[in-house]
Structures are given as C-alpha cells and as structure tokens.
C-alpha cells in the first residue's frame, strides 16, 4: 500500500478511498465455484459475482495454471489466496479500495508511472459507457508521463474502440448532462484506473501487453 491516494476537490473520492482500504480483503463472499483456465477470466468472474473491484496486470512471462476454486465459507482474501496458490507468480494488494492482482516480477510497468495531474470526469447521467472509458484511457495515455514512458520503453497503447453512438432524433428534448471535474495529482496510472473503476461502478480492469514483441499494451474495464 505504498501508493498514496491523493484526492483533490472531491470528498467523494477521498471518502471511498479511505473506507474501502483494508476492509475489502476481509469481506465475506457467498459460496462460489470458479473453474477457469486463465487467471484473468477467474478474477473477472469473481469480481462480478462478489462485486469486488479488482484490477489485474497480466504476467506474460508465465502461462497460467488453470484454476478450480470451490469455496463455501470464505472471504475475498481466501479466494485470492487460492488464486496465488495456483499461480505463485502473482501477488495481490488492496490499494485505493481495489484489489490489485499483479505479477510479483513486473519491471517498469506502465501502471507504476506517476502522473502529475489528471482529471476524472463525473457525469450526472452516470452513463459511463464504452466511449466514456475509451476517452478516459485516452486521457491517461495523453499525459506527458505516459508518452514519456512509451517513448522510453517502446511500448505503445493500441486501445481499440468499435462503437455505436445513437443520436437522438429531431424535435425531442435531450437531457443535459452535467460534468464534474475531479483532479488527481501525483497518482500512479494504477490509482487512476482504480479511481476510474470506482467512479464508473465497474468491478474489473485489466492491463496487458500484446503483439509479437509485446510492443503494445491494452487497457480494458467493465
């Protein structure tokens, strides 16, 4: 928990950050049975079932060991223990009120880049759709620190958006959306993703590298 969550302007984010901290891992979960070949899939399924926010950084250096987890009386921590027991190359921490699962060895991860200043936009209609998220990633990737990291590592984002934006017809009144800006300073990309996930009431985000030379990275959230 070495990351410092510094929240400006928004008591909401501060409050959620504090309350969630250190409590999430001990949260009891309903009996569950998860069988997945990949850690990513297992975490995603668990996050949705238990409604526990999880951020995941994929380890490309080791293939995943398939997971077969069956718990009757357990906590979040018990589930995570089962995951890392089968895949000891991963560890987890609870940070920013989010369970963060990551490789133990993760040299120069983009998620550890500190961003000096970045905004998160809160929308009054709470419509945090695919376009919103794509723009939110773009907001992160267009920071000087992110660009500098890409230049330095040669790893570039290749985040894809195929979307459909429905446009209201003429003569109808479109509800106005009010946007509230929340500015974060000196936060890591990971914290930004954690805070973004909480704001959008999502339960899972994932960061991974891909390409023949792992020259691309991707961010997804749902």
């Amino acid at each position, binding site marked *: 928990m070495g990351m410092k969550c510094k929240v400006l302007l928004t008591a909401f984010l501060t409050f959620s950050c504090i309350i969630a901290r250190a409590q999430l891992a001990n949260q009891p979960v309903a009996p569950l049975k998860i069988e997945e070949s990949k850690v990513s*899939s297992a975490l995603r399924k668990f996050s949705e079932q238990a409604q526990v926010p999880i951020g995941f950084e994929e380890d490309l250096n080791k293939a995943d060991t398939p997971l077969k987890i069956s718990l009757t009386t357990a906590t979040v921590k018990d589930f995570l223990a089962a995951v890392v027991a089968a895949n000891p190359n991963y560890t987890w921490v609870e940070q920013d009120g989010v369970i963060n699962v990551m490789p133990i060895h993760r040299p120069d991860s983009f998620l550890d880049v500190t961003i000096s200043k970045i905004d998160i936009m809160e929308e009054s209609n709470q419509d945090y759709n695919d376009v*919103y998220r794509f723009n939110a990633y773009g907001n992160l*990737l267009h920071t000087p620190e992110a660009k500098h990291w890409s230049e330095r590592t040669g790893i570039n984002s*290749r985040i*894809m958006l195929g979307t459909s934006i*429905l446009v209201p017809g003429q003569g109808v*009144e*479109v509800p106005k959306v009010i946007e509230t800006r929340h500015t974060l300073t000196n936060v890591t990309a990971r914290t930004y993703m954690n805070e973004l996930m909480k704001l959008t009431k999502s339960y899972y985000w994932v960061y991974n590298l891909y390409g023949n030379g792992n020259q691309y990275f991707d961010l997804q959230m749902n």
Partner: protein
Amino acid sequence: MPRTILTCLFIILLSAGALAVDMTSLLAKAKESTRKPTPHELMAPYWCLEPGWHTELQLRNNLLKSDLTVTPVLRLATGQEFKLSPVTIPAGTVTTVDVMAELTKVAPPLVHQPGTYGSVSLQYSSISTANLYAVAMVHMDVQPIGYHIDAASIGKKSMGGSREGIWWLPRAGVSDYLVISNGSDKAVTGTLSLFDAGGKESKSTVNLGMHQTVRMVVSQLVSSAKLSGTYGGIRFSVPDSAREINSVHFLYDPTAGFSAMMKMFHFDGSSKLEERTWAGNTKWTQWAPMLALKNPDPIVGFPQGTTLQPTIFLRNTTAQSVNANVSIGWHGDSGQGKANLPVLTLNPLETRKLDIGSVQQQLGIPDTAHWGLVTVTTGATPDDVIAVAASYDATGRYGAQTPFSDQLADHWTGGLWQVDSTHNSIIAVTNGGTRPTDALLTFLYNGGKDKYEIQKTIAPGDQLWLNLSDYIHNGIPDRNGKVFPTTLTAGTYELRDLKPADKTLSGSLFEGKIIADKTWGHLTYGCMICCGYGSLGIVDPDPLGLPVTSNGSTTPIVQDNCSGAQFDYNFITAWVSGNGNIVSVDPGGGLQTGLAGGFTNVGGNGILASGDGEDMGLDRGHPSQCPQMNQSANGTTNVRVPTSLTLVMSGRIDHNGEQIGICPGPISQCIPHCYGYHHDLSYTVLDQDAKVMTNTTMTASEHVHFTGSNPPPSHPLADFDKTVAVGTDGKFGDIQAFCFGAPPPPQAGEFLKARQDLSITVSPNNYPVRINCVDDESDGTHLTDVTANPAATCQ
C-alpha cells in the same frame, strides 16, 4: 278592405340538456358534405288551376353553397303526370314557379279547366331530402283567399298509420275541401272516419291509385253521415304506406273573404315520448306561438274596432280519456303574463272547442293583450291530442291562424319573407325549453349572398318578436353592425339555437311568422322546416392510426340535413371496440387506447336530433318530423406498432485524431481523438404498414454484443446498451465508429465484429425491429441486416 288571415307557424325549439353545445364554434369548422347525391322527392298534396284558382310553387335551396335543380311534376287527381321544366335554385335562395305558366308549356288545354288539380311531386338529386324547402301557394283569383300547402318527404318504408285532423263548419256559406293524396307508386286503400264532437264515428272506404288525389267536401260527408255539430274529428287510416299519404283540409268563403287551414297531423302510434319531447319537457307538449287575441295588434292593420274570436280546437285521437293542460302566455301594450285554463278531460275521440275570447277576462288576460303563446300539455303518448287554433272576427273577414306543433329544433329554414309597401313580416321565436338559450335569426338576401343576423338570448317560455319592417326601415344594426338595405323587399331566413343540448344537439326553439298583406288586408304565413342532423355513419379520421399504448379518438361526422354542412361531432354515448385486445375505448367519451398492433372497428351509437327519417332509415314517425333518434357511426382503428427500420448509411469518413460523435458533448457521447473512421446512419421507424411512425413518443435502444476482434482482447469486450429518443419525424441516428486512441488508424487485418440488436420502445412496450451484423474493418464498416435470422452470431 277584404281580409283573410292565413297563419303558419314555424316552430324552432332547441332542447335543453344539462350542458349546451357552442354551436357557433361547431359550425365555424363545418364544410360541405361529402355525401354522394341520391334521388329525393317531396310532395305537396294539393295544387289547383281550376277556374278561379292559381298556384305558385316556392322552392328554397337550403344548401350552403351548391345549386339545387328541382323538377316539379304535376299530378292530376287521376295520377296522370306532367313534368315541368327543371328549376335550378342558387344556394340559400327561393325561386317561385308559376304553375299556370309552366303547365301552359306542357299541357295548355288543362289550364283553368275543372279537374285541374292534384298533388305535385318535387324531384331532385341531392345529399338530403331536407336540402329543399317547398311549398305550394294555392290562391283564389282576386280574393283574399290562399293556402300554404307544405311539401313533405315521402316515406318509402311501409307502415300503418293515419292522418288526423279537425273539421270545422263555422257558418253557413263556408265551403271546404278535404284533400288526400297518394305519393306512393302503388294503390292505397284507406278508411276515412269522421267524428262528431263527442266522438261518434262514421266510416267509409277511400281508394287511391298510384299518385292519385281524392278531394272531398267535409260538409257533405258530415251531412251524409248524419253527424251533428259544427266541428269534429277526421281520420284517414291506412294499414300500411301511411307515410306516403299526405292530406290538407281547408275552408273558404269568397263572399266573406274568409279562408282557414285546418292543419292535419301524421299519427302512427309508434313514436316514443323521448323521441319527440325534450328540452326539459316531460309530457306531450304542443305550442301555437302567435294566437291573435280579441284585440288585434294594430301592426296587422285590421280596421279599428275589429274584435277577434280566438278559438282553440282540441281533439283526443285515442280511445282513452286524456287530461289536457292549456296555458296562454300573453303579451300586449300593457305588458305580459300567463293564464292557465282549468285542466280539461277529453273523452275518447272527443273534439272540444275552446272559445278563448269569451273567457279572456276570466283568465285575467287584459283587453290590451294582442298575442298569446298557447301551450297544450297532455300525457305520455305523442299525438294523443291534436290542436288547431283560429282567430277570426264574427264575419270571418279578419283574422289569423297559428298552427300547433310539438317540434323543437336547433335549426330551422324558412321560405320567403316580404317587406314592401304592401307587405310586412312579423316573426316570433319561442324558447320551449327550461333554460335560457341564444337564438340566431339569419336573413338571407341578394341572392343568398348577403345576410343579416339577429342574436338574442331568450328565457324559457319567452319569445322574441320581430317586426321586420322596423329592422329594415329604421336601420337597426345586426350583431355584426350591418344594416338592411332600405330598398330590400324579400328574402329567406333561417333560425338556429346556438346552445343546443350536449350530445344530442336537440334545440329548444320554434318559430312563427305572419306576413301581413295590406292589399288584401290579410295575414299569410310562412312555415319553416326543422332540419336535424344525420350521422354519416363514419368517423374522422378513418382509419385512426393509433400508436400502441397511446390515446386517441375519432369523431363521428354529422351533417346538417338542410344545409349539408358537415362537421365532426361526438354524439355517441356508447362506444364499443370490436376487439378489446387491440383497442380499449372509454364507453362514454370514446377515448381509445392502443393495446396491441392490428385493426379493429371502433364506434357506437347515441341519441341525436335527427332530420329526415327517410334519409336515415328511421322506422318510426313521419319523415318530415325531426325526432331524437338513435344513430351510429364507426370507423377503423389501426393500432400501430414499430416493426422495422429503414436505414440510410453514409460512406466512410476518416479521422486522424479528430473528434467523432455528438460533439461538443459529454465524454460519453463525444470522442475527442479518433484514429480511424466513422459512418453516419439514419434510421426511420416504420409500422406494420411500412408507414413512418411520426409524432409518437418512442425511444430507440441498442444492445451491442462483440463477437470477435483482431487484435484479440485480453478479455471479452463488454456488451453495451444505449438508448435515445426517436424524433417526432420517426427518425434517429447512429454513428458507427472504429477508432484507436493513438495512430495509426485501423490497419489491414485489424477488425472488430459485433451483433447490434435494435429495438423501439413505446412505453411500456418494447419492439425488436432490426438486427445488424457489424464488421468494422480497416476499409470501413460492413453492416449486414440479419433481422430475418434472429439466431445470427455475427462472427
């Protein structure tokens, strides 16, 4: 100065319901009828060109705008026909036909020959029988003797009934005719009954061939039947075809200059009280609006000192005793008041003569009173008592009549009025209802092109009296500030109740008119006809396109049977849906709610002030009456549901970091930096008939499910749903975008595939309307409509 008084009363009544209709605004929206013309016929039961007699036909076109062409057909008593030249009458005008001149053209030997009399048929093609007002004016040459013979429609529906009247032999030397005409195309055999005052009956059989007329002398019949007295009853009954029979009974005395019309009535026993009585009246009621009292009004020009003998005849047409209440609302120089006669009990078939003049003082009617409104109220059976009024001096030279009628209506049309150096017209409009109403008298002149309107509020039981000469010569402005041309001498007129009863449009007005002829010193009359309304049986709009879950309504189309004015009016009180699963309808108000897509019939029926019963297929009463009858209308309601979309899609629009979406806008709708492309799509919502659904509150929703991509995602791309409002034009848009957050734009081999399910919601129902397979490739989006294959995987 010889004088004869003929009186005809026009009765206009508007019924009074709990609520009144604003007729002014209703008529403001009226248009010409869309009903197709059909053949119609009126018949006047008598015309005469025997030596010493002449006849003219007064024909009024009641239509709003269209000309009306009428062909008069004279029939002799034998039924032989002579077709006269057609007459084209401009809208709103009266045309006079000189029968002698016209008969001279087709059968000159008949003119002024004994036996040259009979009935006259008036034939025309129009939208309603009541488009024509017609009267035969039969005059004795160079005598103050003349009769106003109303033409009436011929009821083609066979039914039994009778003509009922009262005979009167006021003094020696008075001649009379009882004329019975058969308007049907077949022979009719009827029974003529004469009754003495006590109800003693004498019967004889009368045969009438097709179109034939029988003319009899009642005084001779009375003598032959050995009936006593100077008055009694007449009945001509037929087992069927009673509506095709018409009759008149009139008296004349050339020596004294006396003539009188003894109005006859149609009776068939099938009419119901509620069909004939309204406006707060609960018993069978008849009115005579202009009974001249003992002391005549100076305005009529009788010689100084003339004393009239106002008389009312009442006849019980039934075989039971009937109680009759008679009241006289009088007015004159000293004011006005009302006198009630003691309740009268009429024995079965009795005829009673009430000498009002002799009891005026007892009744408290002052000598200064000139006119009386006579009201006769009896029981619960229409036509159980008939009444005739007459008011003459002892010689019969001077006097007037006012016919009784039970008819109240909200629209009446009349014939000719005259105001010149030798004529004046006096009109009385009476409110026969129980609440105040607004009467509008419209005088048409200058070939129907100009009008003068008088609007007055009339209290219940009260009258509006008009001396038309005053209005013309004193320059009295009408309700619009207009004045009559001072040179104006004649025209037509009509009367409306501007506040008829809600739903039924029943009015409570009736009218009487006297034309004073200074040359002959007599008063003639002009009768109006009631118009009534006919449902066209259809509604507006038809069909009604009703979006599912929405409310809407249709309105029956109603036609004024005289003018042909057509307007939307909801008279229906019992609405019914043909399929309650498709449309529900409020039984009372007619508000419809679409429940499911499809067609069904929605309509109903209600009581409406009806016009010519023959046109409407009514099976009771005489066609010329205007009863309240059940009428119906219905139409089709098409409940519209969204079923499909049409699509117009633009070509690929490339972006190299530019924005896409609804920009500027919230970041959930606007992509500020896109490296890729987009297409603009415009969808239009169609219903099951492939018609655009406009003006409907709808939302469009999509559910997008990703089915594949390259590069493959680290985990499955999340489905998403979006919803927007559909425009009032039935359209909404879609922006199909394929972007990367950083350069380069999509490269060959990079793609994203998805299935897009589009649906339209008309709250609370949701209708799937289209399925697209979306394939975003580097060269653009490839969209495939797979709606026909709901299981399409779009991979």
